C-alpha cells in the first residue's frame, strides 16, 4: 500500500469515525428528545381525555338533573306518591329517556323499586340498588339488559323535587363504541374500551378476552397485543402505560395508556385504552435520520476528497523523491527530486539531490579508479600470460643462436627441436589471445524453447565418462518431474554449464560427487551445480565473477565472467554458496518460459 493510500485511508477513517460519532450522538439525543416529547404528549392527551370523560359524566348528571326538574316528571312523581299507583307510568321511562337523550332511565319508588325502565321495561317492581346513590356525581355501573347481556354506563341518581317521600330517577348513558366515537380525539389518537365480563360469565375476570375489546370502528385488529397491558391494569387497578408494537414495524407502534374505570365499590368494570400513534414521531425521526445519514455521507465523501487532496499534497514530494531514488537505484544518476518549499520534504529533496550529485561524482571517480585497476589487472594478466610462453621462446631462440656454432647435423637436430618448441609456444600465445578475444566478443543469444532437463542431460552425457574415468567423480542428477521450459540459447547455456562443470571437476582432483539439479521455483527455474571439493572462502566468493580473477594456477579468470555474462543475457542471475571445506554450489536462476 502506497503512502498516499495509507494517508488517504487514515484521513478517511478518522473523518468517518468522527462524523459517525457526531451523527450517532445527534441521533441518540434526538431520539431521546422525541421520546420525552412523546411521553409528555401522551400524558397531556390522556389527561385531556380524562377531563373529557369527566365532562361527559357531568353532562350525564346534568341531563338527569334537568329531567328531574321538569314539570312533567314532577307531576308523575306527585301522582305516584298521592295515588300509590305507579302502573300508569309503566311506559314513561322510555319516552323520557328519548326526550332527554339518555340511554338508561329508570323511575324508582321511595322503597327502591322500579316503576318504569327504559332499558328493561319488564323490570318494573324489581329493586334497583343504585337508587341509593342519590345526589352523587355520575358513576360507572354495569347494567343488565333483557337479552342477557350487560352494558356499561355512566349513571346519575337524582330525587325528583317536590315529591315526598322522594321518587328518584336513575339515568345514564352508555359507555360503548358510540360513546367513544363521540369523544373528541386528537389526530393519531385511538380509543378503545375493554369491558370486563360480569361475574359469573364464562371468562375469568382478570384474563384478557379479545371479544370484549372494541374501538370506535368496531372490533380492534390485533386486539391480543393489548392483552398484557389490560391485564396489568385489571390486576393493579391503576393506570398503566406501555409502548405497544402493533404490526412489528416501528412506525406502527403506539403509546397506549390503560385507564381502569371503576364502579362505586372500586371494582374495575372496564379499561379505557388511549393509544397515541407514534407514526408521526417515528416518521420525523426517520426523516431526521435520513438527513443525518445524507449529511454524514456527504461529509465523509467530502472528507475523502479532501483527504485525497491532502494525501496527494503531502505524498507527492515524497513520491517524487522515491521515484528519483528509484531512478538513481536503476542507474540513472542524473535523476533529481523537485525541490519545492522550505519544509522538511523540501530539505529532504535538496539533501537527496546533493547526495545524489556527490554519489555520482564519487561513482565516476570510482569507475575511473576501477577502470585503471582493470587495465592494470589486464596488463598484469597479459604480462603474466604472455611472459610464460615468451620465456621459452627467448630460451629457444638463444639456444638456436648458440647452436649455429654446432655441426650441421647437430644444428639440424637442435633446429628441429627449437622450431617445434617455438611453434608450440606460439600456439599457446594464440590460445591466450583467442580467449581474450572471445571474452570481448560474446555473441547475442538466439533463444529457443527447451527444457532444463534436456540441458542438464546433455552436460552430464558429455562429461560423465571423463569424470568417472580419471578423476573418479560421481555424477548425480536431481531433476524435478514438472516441465521446466526455458527460452534460452542452448549453445550459450551449454557452454556456461560446461564451464561450471569443468570448474567443479577441477575442484575435486581426488574425486568426489558432482550434483546437477533443476527445479521450478515460483515463476523461475533454478539450476544447481554442486561439488564436494575444498570450497571457497568468502573473499573468493565475493570476487569470483570478477573478470580475470582466478584461483587456478593457469586460469585466465574469464570463465565465470563469461558464465555470468551468459546468464545475465538470458535475464537470469547466478550466485554461489560455499563454505571452506564443504564444496561449492553455483545457483543459476532463469525465468520460466511462458506458454
Amino acid at each position: 500500500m502506497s503512502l498516499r493510500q495509507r494517508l488517504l485511508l487514515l484521513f478517511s477513517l478518522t473523518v468517518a469515525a468522527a462524523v459517525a460519532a457526531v451523527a450517532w450522538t445527534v441521533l441518540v439525543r434526538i431520539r431521546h428528545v422525541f421520546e420525552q416529547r412523546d411521553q409528555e404528549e401522551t400524558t397531556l392527551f390522556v389527561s385531556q381525555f380524562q377531563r373529557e370523560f369527566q365532562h361527559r359524566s357531568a353532562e350525564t348528571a346534568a341531563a338527569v338533573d334537568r329531567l328531574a326538574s321538569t314539570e312533567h316528571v314532577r307531576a308523575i312523581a306527585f301522582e305516584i306518591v298521592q295515588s300509590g299507583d305507579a302502573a300508569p307510568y309503566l311506559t314513561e321511562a322510555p319516552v323520557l329517556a328519548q326526550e332527554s337523550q339518555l340511554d338508561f332511565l329508570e323511575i324508582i319508588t321511595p322503597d327502591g323499586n322500579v316503576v318504569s325502565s327504559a332499558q328493561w321495561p319488564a323490570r318494573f317492581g324489581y329493586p334497583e340498588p343504585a337508587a341509593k346513590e342519590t345526589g352523587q356525581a355520575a358513576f360507572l355501573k354495569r347494567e343488565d339488559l333483557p337479552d342477557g347481556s350487560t352494558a356499561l354506563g355512566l349513571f346519575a341518581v337524582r330525587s325528583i323535587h317536590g315529591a315526598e317521600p322522594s321518587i328518584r330517577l336513575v339515568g345514564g348513558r352508555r359507555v360503548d363504541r358510540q360513546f367513544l366515537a363521540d369523544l373528541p380525539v386528537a389526530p393519531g389518537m385511538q380509543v378503545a374500551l375493554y369491558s370486563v365480563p360480569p361475574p359469573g360469565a364464562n371468562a375469568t375476570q382478570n384474563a384478557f378476552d379479545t371479544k370484549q375489546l372494541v374501538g370506535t370502528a368496531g372490533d380492534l385488529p390485533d386486539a391480543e397485543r393489548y392483552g398484557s397491558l389490560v391485564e396489568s391494569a385489571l390486576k393493579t387497578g391503576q393506570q398503566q402505560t406501555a409502548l405497544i408494537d402493533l404490526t412489528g414495524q416501528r412506525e406502527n407502534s403506539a403509546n397506549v395508556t390503560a385507564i381502569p374505570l371503576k364502579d362505586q365499590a372500586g371494582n374495575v368494570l372496564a379499561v379505557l385504552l388511549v393509544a397515541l400513534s407514534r407514526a408521526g414521531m417515528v416518521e420525523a425521526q426517520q426523516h431526521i435520520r435520513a438527513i443525518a445519514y445524507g449529511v454524514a455521507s456527504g461529509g465523509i465523501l467530502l472528507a475523502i476528497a479532501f483527504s485525497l487532496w491532502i494525501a496527494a499534497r503531502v505524498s507527492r514530494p515524497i513520491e517524487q523523491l522515491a521515484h528519483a531514488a528509484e531512478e538513481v537505484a536503476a542507474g540513472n544518476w542524473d535523476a533529481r527530486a523537485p525541490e519545492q518549499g522550505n519544509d522538511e520534504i523540501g530539505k529532504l529533496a535538496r539533501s537527496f539531490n546533493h547526495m545524489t550529485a556527490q554519489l555520482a561524482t564519487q561513482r565516476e571517480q570510482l569507475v575511473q579508479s576501477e577502470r585503471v585497476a582493470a587495465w592494470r589487472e589486464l596488463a598484469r594478466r597479459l604480462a603474466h600470460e604472455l611472459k610464460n610462453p615468451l620465456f621459452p621462446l627467448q630460451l629457444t631462440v638463444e639456444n638456436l643462436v648458440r647452436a649455429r656454432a654446432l655441426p650441421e647435423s647437430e644444428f639440424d637436430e637442435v633446429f628441429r627441436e627449437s622450431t617445434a618448441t617455438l611453434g608450440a609456444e606460439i600456439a599457446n600465445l594464440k590460445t591466450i589471445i583467442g580467449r581474450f578475444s572471445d571474452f570481448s566478443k560474446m555473441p547475442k543469444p538466439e533463444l529457443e524453447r527447451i527444457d532444463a532437463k534436456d540441458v542438464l542431460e546433455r552436460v552430464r552425457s558429455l562429461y560423465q565418462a571423463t569424470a568417472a574415468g580419471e578423476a573418479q567423480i560421481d555424477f548425480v542428477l536431481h531433476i524435478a518431474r514438472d516441465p521446466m521450459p526455458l527460452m534460452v540459447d542452448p549453445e550459450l547455456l551449454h557452454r556456461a554449464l560446461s564451464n561450471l562443470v569443468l570448474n567443479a571437476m577441477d575442484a575435486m582432483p581426488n574425486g568426489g560427487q558432482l550434483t546437477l539439479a533443476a527445479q521450478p521455483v515460483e515463476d523461475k527455474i533454478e539450476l544447481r551445480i554442486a561439488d564436494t571439493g575444498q570450497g571457497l572462502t568468502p573473499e573468493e566468493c565475493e570476487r569470483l565473477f570478477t573478470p580475470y580473477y582466478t584461483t587456478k594456477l593457469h586460469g585466465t579468470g574469464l570463465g565465470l565472467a563469461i558464465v555470468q555474462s551468459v546468464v545475465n543475457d538470458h535475464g537470469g542471475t547466478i550466485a554461489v554458496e560455499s563454505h571452506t571445506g564443504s564444496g561449492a554450489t553455483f545457483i543459476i536462476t532463469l525465468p520460466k518460459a511462458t506458454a
Partner: protein
Amino acid sequence: MFRRFAISCVLLLVALQSGARTRPHYGGTLRIETEGDPWQQPSGIARRLVYDGLTRIDAAGSVQSALATGWEADSGNHRWEFHLRPVVHFHDGSSLTAAAVVASLNLSCTANCPWSAVHAVGSSIVFTNDAPMPNLPALLAGDDFLIEAVGSAEGSAPQANVGTGAFQVASSASGQLALKANEAGWQGRPFADTIEIRSHRAVRDQWLDLSLGKTDVVEVPAELIRQAQQQKMVVVVAPAAELLAVQVSETGALSNPQLRAAIACSVDRAPLANVIFQKQGEAVASVLPQSLSGDAFLFPVDRDLNKSHALRGGLTAPALTFAADTDAIMQLAAQRIVLNLREAGFNATVTGTAATQHADLTLRRIPLQGGSSSAVLDQVLRAAGETQLGTASNPAALYKAEHTFLEQHTLIPLVDLPRAYALGPRVRDLHLNAGGMPDLADASLGDTP
C-alpha cells in the same frame, strides 16, 4: 199562561229533536280503523261483516240460528244435522247450498277439526265424529267456521271474499277496504250504507283520527282502556274476550312435566294484569273466566317460587325459546315472564314472532268467543291444539276436565283480557258480541253534532 205554553213548546221541540237523534238512521258511511288486517283469520273485523256462520252466539252467550235454521243431534252427540236456511244467496248471486257450506267448511278446517266428516244431505249438513260433539253448534258460531263461497254455481273460478253477510266488498285499495250494505241479506239490510275500514293504522293514529272526526270506530287495546276512559272517550268493552296464556311445548326441552309445572309456578300473574295491562285484565290460572264458570278461584293465581324450585329439583333446563308477537305489549309481557323464569332458574330468550313453530314457549292471545262454559272450554282446548274436546255436561265435570287439562301444564293461563273499541259521536247502537267483536250490522249513524 203564555209563558207556560212557550216553555212547554220548547220542551216538546227539544224532546222531539232528542228522539230524532236517538232513532236509528239508515244510510251513511261508518268509518273504522284497525291496527291489523281486516281479513286476518280468525277474527279480522271484515270477516264478521261479509261472512256468516251456521250459528251465532248472542250477547247473552246463547247459541242462535244463523245460516242454519235448526239442528239436532243423535243421543250420543256423535252425529249432528244442521238444516240450511232456504233462499239465501252469496254476494255474487249464487245460492247458498249445503254443498257450498261443506266446501267452505272443508276449506277453512283442514286439521284438528271438531268433526271427522261433514257432508251435505239435501239441504242439510251432517257432521259425524267418533267422539261426542256436545258443543258443535257453539263451535260452529266461531270465527273459524264462517261460510264463504269457494266456487260459483256455474263452476267458474270463485271471487275472493264472497259471503252471505250483511255487507259485501265494494272496493279494496291501498289499505282501505270499502264494504257496501247487502240489500238482499237474509238478516235484513244493515243501517249503514257502507263501511270503510282503514287497516294497518297505529293505535295512537287511530285515536288522533277519532279526535279529529276522521273515523267513527277505533281500537282500544286492553292496556290503554284506562287511558281512553281518562280521556273521556266513549269506550265499549267486552270483558274476558281473550285469554292471555303461555303455550308450553310438550316436546323438546320441556318434555319433562316437572319442568312445565315449575314454569307454571314461577310466573307472577299480578304484575301482568295490574301493571302491563293496567288493571284491565284479570289474573287467572283457569281456562274459563270466573264470570263464566264461577269456579276460577279454585285455581290459584299466586306465584310460588319455592314450589317452582322444588319442582325443578335441580334440573338444569337448556336455553328456552319464547315466542311472542312483535307488538310492544306482548313483547313486554314475554320479557316479564322471562324475568320470572330467570328467577326460577330457567334461561329463556324472547324471539320476535309467535309463528315460531319450534319455540319451547309461546305467548298467545286465545279468543273466548262466547257460549256455554263447555263450549268456551272446547274453543280454548281446540286453540291449544287439543283434539279430544270436553264432554262435560255439569259444573263438576267441567271443573274436572279443566283441571285435568291444566295439570298437563301445556297451557298456562295468565290474564283474561277485555276487548274494547272507542266510538265517535255519530255512532249509535254499537255493541260488542260475546267474542268482543263489534256488531256493526246493527250499528247506525246519527247526525253529525
